[in-house]
Every structure is written in C-alpha cells, then in structure tokens.
C-alpha cells in the first residue's frame, strides 16, 4: 500500500504543476463573475443561470482534467521511461496501476473541490443563495468522472495518447446517448442489429444515471435509493474497468 500512496502523491504533485488546472479554474471564475454582473439581463433568473453555469463548468473542468491531464500524464510518463524505471523497483504492475488511478481520482477530487470553492465564494460575494443538494450534485460529477478516469486508464494501457483521448471521449459521449440505442433496437426490424444495439447498450456506461444537475437547480434532490443505485453502479462498472486495465497491463511489454 505504501507504493500506491507514493505513486498517488506523485500523480497529485504532477497535476498541481499543470497549467491546465489553473486555466480551467481561472476561466470558470471569470465566467461566473461575468454572469453575476449581467444578472439584470436575466429578468429574475439570475440564481438559475448562475447555478447552471457553475455546475456545467465544474462538469466540463472535471471532464477535461480527466481526459487531457489523465491521458497526457500517463502518455508522458511512458514516453520518458518512467513506467520502466518504476517497474524495475519492487513495485508490482497492479500497484503501479492502482497508484496512477488513485492519483487520477485525487486530481478529480481536487478539481471538483477547488471549482466548488470558487463557485461558493463568488455566489456568497454576489448574494446568490446556496443551491440545496449541491453536495449530491458534486458527488454525481465525481462518480461520472471516475468512470471516465477508469476508461482513460484502460485505454492508456494499450494505445497512445491520441487514441486514448479519442476512445475515452467516444465511449463517454456514447454513454450519454445509450438511451438512443434502446430506441434504435425497438425500431429496427433486423434481429442482428437489435441484438447488437442491445448488447452495446448494456456494455456502455449508463451515464444518464448521473444527469441530476438540471433537477437540482429546479429544486428537487435525488432520492436516497437513487444515490445508492448510482454509487453501486459506479463501483461495479469502475471495478470492471480497472480489472480489465490490470489484465491488459499485466501482459503488456514495457520498453
């Protein structure tokens, strides 16, 4: 476990040196300040537009952090031979993978936490009331993006930077649109296509489970059983992704 902790800390330190993190946070802060300034133009919908923009910004920042920082850092470590130098020490491949993964999750928590803090500060300074259920909204963003982190990790074990980025983004987008596959399966007359669409639907992550931001701003918080279902689903899917990544990584030749 000590190895995993060391690798996690190294991943966090690497992220803190990345300018992308500060750019994302700075851009979001500017956006929220501008929104607070143009409040009279919203004709009474200031709070809603502020919360919508803040939650969307947190979501996009977390997604970009996982996609770009996650994929890029893993790729850069491999290119610089860091993987090899770490694995020649008494560190197993599973430990290495877990360390990188927990580093990614740490970065995710850091991005979401910092963005939420900026959001709360600007909201407090401009008199926007606190969004009820904000903690649940942030938890859902964390859960959704942890699946993206798992996807980035899985793809980075067998492809390069560009392909990791493309595949993770493609699966992420498809995961949000997987309901359309059900509709396609219901519409098509071909049995093969129906089976294919249903198979893809069950295999893709059901990211629509994490669509709670609109209802939170609308005033309704997800029920506790829905939160538990989302937690359980994330845990199982995440474990499957990590297991697959570990299986691929165990066979990978590292030079």
């Amino acid at each position, binding site marked *: 476990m000590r190895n995993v902790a060391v690798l996690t800390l190294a991943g966090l330190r690497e992220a803190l040196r990345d300018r992308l993190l500060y750019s994302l946070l700075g851009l979001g802060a500017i956006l929220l300040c501008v929104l607070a300034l143009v409040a009279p133009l919203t004709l009474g919908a200031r709070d809603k537009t502020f919360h919508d923009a803040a939650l969307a910004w947190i979501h996009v920042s977390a997604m970009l952090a996982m996609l770009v920082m996650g994929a890029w850092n893993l790729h850069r470590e491999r290119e610089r031979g860091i993987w090899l130098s770490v694995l020649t020490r008494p560190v197993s491949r599973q430990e290495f993978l877990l360390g990188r993964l927990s580093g990614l999750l740490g970065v995710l928590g850091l991005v979401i936490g910092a963005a939420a803090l900026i959001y709360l500060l600007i909201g407090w300074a401009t008199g926007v009331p606190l969004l009820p259920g904000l903690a649940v909204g942030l938890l859902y963003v964390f859960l959704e993006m942890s699946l993206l982190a798992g996807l980035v990790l899985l793809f980075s074990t067998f492809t390069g930077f560009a392909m990791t980025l493309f595949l993770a983004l493609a699966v992420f987008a498809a995961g949000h649109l997987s309901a359309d596959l059900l509709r396609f399966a219901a519409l098509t007359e071909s049995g093969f296509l129906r089976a294919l669409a249903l198979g893809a639907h*069950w295999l893709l992550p059901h990211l629509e489970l994490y669509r709670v931001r609109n209802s939170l701003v609308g005033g309704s918080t997800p029920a506790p059983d829905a939160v538990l279902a989302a937690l359980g689903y994330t845990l199982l899917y995440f474990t499957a992704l990590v297991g697959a990544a570990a299986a691929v990584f165990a066979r990978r030749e590292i030079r």
Partner: protein
Amino acid sequence: MARSLALAALSLVLLAFAQLGQPAPLIRQQEMRRPLEAVMLGSEALLADYYWFDLLQYFGGYRLGQHDLAEFNPRVERLLRLDPSFHRATLFAAVVRATDMQDPQGALRWLAWAERANPDEWIYPYEQGFFQYLWLENYQEAKAAFQRAGRCAGAPPAWRHFAARISELGGDPAVAREMWLQVADTAEHPRVREAALENVRRLEAILLEHSQERLTASPPSTS
C-alpha cells in the same frame, strides 16, 4: 492477470444481474434529442439559459417595434422542452402569450404542460387559476386549479380564499379585483404590475357603478 480478469468478469456479471433485475432500464426514458442538445452531455440547462437570453432579446425587439411575435412560440417551446423546470421562463411566456398575443388558451396549454412536468410545483396550477378566471371566465376550472395548487407543498394560503370566493361569487368583479391585486402585489416586472393595477382601477369603477345603481334604485314605499 487471471485475478484481474476474474475481477472484471465478476463486476460485469453483477452489473448484468443488477440491470436485468430492473423492471425498466436504469437510465431514464427521454424524448429523442436534437443533435445540439445531445452533445451537451447533461448540461442542457446551460443551452436553455442561452435560449432564455435569446427569448428576452426577441421580446425586447418586439417591444421596440422591430418585429412581431411570429417566432415567439417556437422559441418558447424549444426552451421548455429542454428545461421543463424553468419556472421563470414558463410564467413569462404564458403572460406574454395571454396578453400581447391574446391567446390565453395557448398560455394555459404551456402551464398545463409545465404542471405535468413538475407535479409538485404549486405555481403552475395557481397561475392556471388566475388565467381561467381572469381571461377565460371559466370559474369551475379556476376553482379546480386553485384546489390543485393547494395540494402542493408551499402553496400560498390565498388559494383557499380564492377557491371559496369563486364558489360564493363566481364571476363577481370583486373577486377579479382581489386577484388582480394579488397579481400586482407579487409582480416583479413593473409592466405586469402596471397592467394589473389598471385592471384593479377598471374593476373598482365597475364596482362603484354597481353600488351607485343599488343606492339610486328607489326603495319600496311603505306609505
């Protein structure tokens, strides 16, 4: 490697069991989305906010006499389909449709749609009560709408008063005056408040006329 594969396989099997055990897929069944909405990846409300700004600009153009309101309804429906819980937009659009466009039936359809999408919100049936009473003079529907609003948490206590007054004096200008006063008290936009107060003055004139008619009507002679 075997352990990792076993772990992945076990998780997938558990996921499959969990999903097959559901009476319906875990994901929500939603209407087919347009491409722009689909790529928002769960942040459609942000697009709805943009449509809200666009709607306000469009209405501003109409108020300045630059164009008519021909494109108003499609803009509102695009916005409400994307974010059915956008209360401010729904109420604003309903008022504009009932007043500037002289189409209270259309405004009621939007409010009824919003009520179906947000069954716990009192504001939609409450507003329908006003629209039914003040524009359509449909007193039974107005009373039913106020009673539906009363069943939602947080409804203002005035619904009881209105429902009772409609039962007692349906169609009486005094009830309409009270409703317009309520509209004026709660209006956030000066134009809405001004229009409501104008109606209050008009109804007060009618009420004064009625009372003068009663006074001038000669009492039956006792001699």
